[in-house]
């Protein structure tokens, strides 16, 4: 165990013993887990106070703060008589900063004062809040929030501004063209002056212009202006007042934990709630389609009740699933061609007279492990259903909630809150957390609002993983060291199959299984790609950057290996293949230049590089890596990103930093093994996450661009692991073809 990890374990133990010393509990060094179990075993809960309705109502969840009308020219902005500007955000905030981004788009065209800008989250209404990149669907994913909103939200701000100007012109009897706007204030050379708040009522009587002119880039006040629009959610997230699903307070709110199937696909047989119902605070034990829900006045009581609950499951077929066996099966499939997704148009295998590399790559199941375990509050009242949650895909959650409740969609109201991370987990085509809450609310007859709370173990063990993938590649050079053959077979579950997005599967190819190999930035006309999409009892899901999590690794490590085989510099070798992709070449050159590519480094340290396009953004990273006694340590990462117009540079930097740490944690440790049909890793002790002492120094360089903006929430993930792996190989380490690195004992755990 890493000394820091064992250190904080020891500190915790010592602290606990110190505290418990007063209670004559000081004897042996009990592990916390044992301690909690024994604590649980000793205790009946002696009642559990709950918030009084009055204080609960006072804390009804809201957003970051919202101004009232009167100027509400469209679904995205309101200007209040109190001079506050409210931006209604159609996208889900899970940390990626899009709330700030959307607000800055409106604020820029409106010439708003950032200090007076507030945000709130939109209701579920696909007609108003459609994702223009992939609708009809209200949802956040594919790093599309700013990309699809760029003109829409600017237009919304420009409309409001035009109406304020028109109102001032009318009131002051001056030409509209003579009115200036800045920081929520209208002024005229005559000395007349009014705040937006003062003009809001008059502006609300103006007709919204059809196509208000938008600013030219030279006129931007927030867009691209570093630190001009700090995060709107920083203060509330630094003082504990930010409202997450876990924090929703409602009168009489109950909490449920569910006894989920113990293995993927286990069938419910029966349950005995006798002991569970003896736990003080447990109010109901009810069968739901998901399993058996233990409902209580508080979370701890519900957890204790579930511990006491006895459930019979039929695991006669479900226990067979095993990730080692699966891997062997995938390897066998990868040896056979699958359904083609791209056919060679260039050179043929006959030209591969140079070196040929045959490699099989293996990628594990990965859990998202967002800090906030899944949860949702559902309340059936007055003939309607209300939910509170981090509804990342409101359109799906809305539809599935209505279906589960047996209500028409117009009788279902979603209240979307910020979520404590998602990384794709809350964007699922089955709305598992939402539907579970609705099912429990129904099962208790709508008697009270109820929150279904996943424990960390429930969350990690629930499936919906980044699916396991195996790639088999045979790539060869011609006599001049150019790539002549590239045969690429991919094996892994289709994420889209079986869900509402299945229509995206064309000719048997789920695009999310092959993105990044298919339509690679490189000019590889010889690439022959095929896909096998096995079906399993464990559900797959997108995980931050989706298919690119594995395809970029294979492409970028194989390209690197081919460059080495050709005796060429990895940057030069790539650039020769990027003639048709100037933006990819641009970030590659920028990252290399800023990292000092080729300069001498300390002994035992090397740089590796990778570049990848995902979701329309181009990212290159240089990883500076040390390899000592076979252990990998990433010391520094230089990242170059081209995401079109950089709307909020500091948010872009933050996303690149976060993507790098997230990807590195997965590369080091991330693996869900399936044994006896269930996840073997269920909490942060075994499903390790990157910690502060493992975070490399990160430098981010943003390409100045007037291209249409594209996303940043995901594209920083794909290049990291291959850049690190390429550095390891340069240091004389193995070409790592199986992740995570702990598999080969290459990380100090």
């Amino acid at each position, binding site marked *: 165990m890493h000394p*820091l990890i064992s250190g904080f374990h020891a*500190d915790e133990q010592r602290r606990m013993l110190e505290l418990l010393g007063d*209670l004559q509990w000081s004897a042996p060094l009990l592990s916390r887990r044992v301690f*909690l179990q024994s604590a649980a075993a000793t205790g009946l809960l002696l009642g559990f106070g709950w918030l009084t309705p009055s204080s609960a109502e006072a804390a009804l969840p809201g957003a970051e703060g919202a101004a009232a009308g009167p100027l509400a020219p469209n679904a995205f902005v309101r200007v209040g008589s109190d001079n506050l500007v409210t931006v209604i955000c159609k996208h889900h905030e899970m940390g990626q900063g899009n709330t700030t981004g959307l607000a800055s788009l409106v604020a820029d065209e409106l010439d708003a004062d950032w200090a007076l800008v507030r945000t709130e989250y939109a209701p579920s209404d696909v007609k108003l809040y459609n994702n223009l990149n992939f609708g009809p669907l209200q949802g956040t994913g594919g790093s599309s929030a700013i990309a699809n909103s760029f003109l829409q939200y600017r237009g919304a701000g420009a409309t409001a501004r035009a109406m304020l100007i028109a109102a001032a012109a009318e009131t002051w009897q001056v030409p509209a063209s003579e009115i200036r706007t800045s920081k929520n204030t209208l002024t005229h050379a005559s000395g007349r002056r009014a705040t937006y708040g003062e003009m809001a009522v008059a502006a609300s009587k103006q007709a919204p212009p059809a196509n208000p002119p938008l600013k030219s880039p030279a006129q931007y006040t927030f867009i691209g202006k570093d630190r001009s629009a700090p995060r709107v959610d920083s203060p509330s997230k630094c003082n*504990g*007042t930010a409202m997450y699903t876990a924090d929703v307070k409602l009168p009489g709110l109950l909490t449920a934990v569910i006894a989920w199937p113990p293995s993927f696909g286990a069938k419910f047989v029966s349950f005995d709630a006798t002991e569970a119902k003896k736990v003080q605070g447990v109010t109901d034990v009810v069968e739901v389609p998901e399993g058996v829900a233990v409902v209580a006045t*508080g979370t701890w009581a519900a957890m204790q009740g579930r511990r006491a609950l006895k459930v019979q499951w039929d695991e006669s077929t479900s226990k067979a699933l095993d990730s080692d066996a699966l891997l062997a099966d995938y390897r066998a499939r990868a040896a056979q061609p699958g359904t083609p997704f791209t056919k060679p148009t260039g050179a043929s295998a006959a030209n591969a007279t140079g070196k040929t590399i045959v490699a099989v790559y293996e990628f594990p199941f990965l859990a998202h492990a967002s800090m906030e375990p899944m949860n949702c509050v559902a309340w059936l009242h007055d003939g309607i259903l209300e939910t509170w949650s981090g509804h990342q895909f409101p359109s799906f959650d809305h539809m599935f909630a209505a279906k589960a409740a047996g209500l028409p969609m117009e009788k279902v109201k979603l209240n979307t809150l910020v979520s404590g991370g998602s990384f794709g987990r809350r964007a699922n085509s089955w709305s598992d957390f939402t539907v579970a809450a609705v099912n429990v609310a129904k099962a208790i007859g709508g008697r009270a609002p109820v929150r279904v709370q996943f424990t960390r173990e429930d969350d990690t063990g629930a499936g919906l993983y980044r699916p396991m993938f195996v790639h088999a590649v045979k790539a060869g050079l011609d006599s001049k060291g150019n790539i002549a053959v590239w045969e690429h077979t991919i094996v892994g579950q289709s994420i889209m199959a079986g869900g509402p997005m299945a229509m995206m599967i064309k000719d048997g190819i789920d695009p999310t299984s092959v993105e990044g190999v298919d339509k690679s930035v490189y000019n590889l006309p010889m690439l022959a790609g095929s896909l096998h999409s096995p079906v399993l009892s464990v559900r797959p899901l997108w995980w931050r950057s989706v298919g690119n999590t594995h395809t970029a690794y294979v492409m970028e490590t194989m390209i690197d290996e081919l460059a080495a085989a050709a005796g060429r510099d990895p940057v030069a070798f790539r650039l020769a293949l990027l003639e048709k992709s100037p933006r990819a070449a641009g970030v590659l050159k920028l990252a290399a230049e800023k990292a000092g590519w080729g300069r001498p480094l300390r002994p035992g340290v090397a740089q590796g590089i990778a570049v990848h396009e995902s979701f329309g953004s181009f990212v290159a990273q240089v990883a500076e890596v040390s390899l000592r006694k076979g252990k990998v340590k990433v010391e520094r990462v230089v990242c170059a990103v081209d995401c079109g117009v950089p709307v909020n540079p500091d948010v872009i930097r933050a996303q690149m930093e976060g993507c790098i740490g997230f990807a590195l944690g997965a590369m080091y440790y991330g693996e869900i093994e399936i044994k006896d049909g269930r996840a073997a890793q269920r909490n942060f002790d075994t499903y390790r996450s990157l910690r*502060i*002492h493992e975070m490399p120094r990160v430098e981010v360089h943003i390409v100045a661009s007037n291209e249409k903006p594209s996303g940043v929430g995901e594209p920083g993930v794909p290049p990291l692991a291959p850049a690190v792996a390429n550095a390891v190989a340069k240091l004389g380490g193995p070409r790592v073809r199986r992740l995570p690195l702990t598999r080969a004992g290459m990380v100090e755990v």
Partner: protein
Amino acid sequence: MSVTLIINGTRREYEGDPNTPLLWVIREDVGLTGTKYGCGIAQCGACTVHVDGRPLRSCSAPVSAVADRPVTTIEGLSSRAAKAVQKAWVDLDVVQCGYCQSGQIMSATALLEQKPKPSDTDIDHAMAGNICRCATYQRIRAAIHAASAQLAG
């Protein structure tokens, strides 16, 4: 047997099971929800509070263990070091999803109260028990140094 709690300076009697983890009492009995549940096994630090001014993972501490001891949650932070930490966190826009940040701020504050000028190694030791899945670690480190500079200035 009731347990006397002193949370953010307010004394109250807790009548429930003394083995209930402090986290759930803070969140659901006292109603202070800035302290978060992340793992329940003292692995992630989202539930970090101060007891006697030092950090404790409240998810794994029975409420009885803090009887008659001053407990501080994110809502009750008031020291000079705490204010410097919170200001640095906002100034540098450390947060992303924010869910772990109460715990990060509690750990960072306790560090600076003990060591106003921490080294990077001190920071590693004090903060290694707090996971951030958004990996805001670089900014956490920078914000601790910034808060330290502010305290010195």
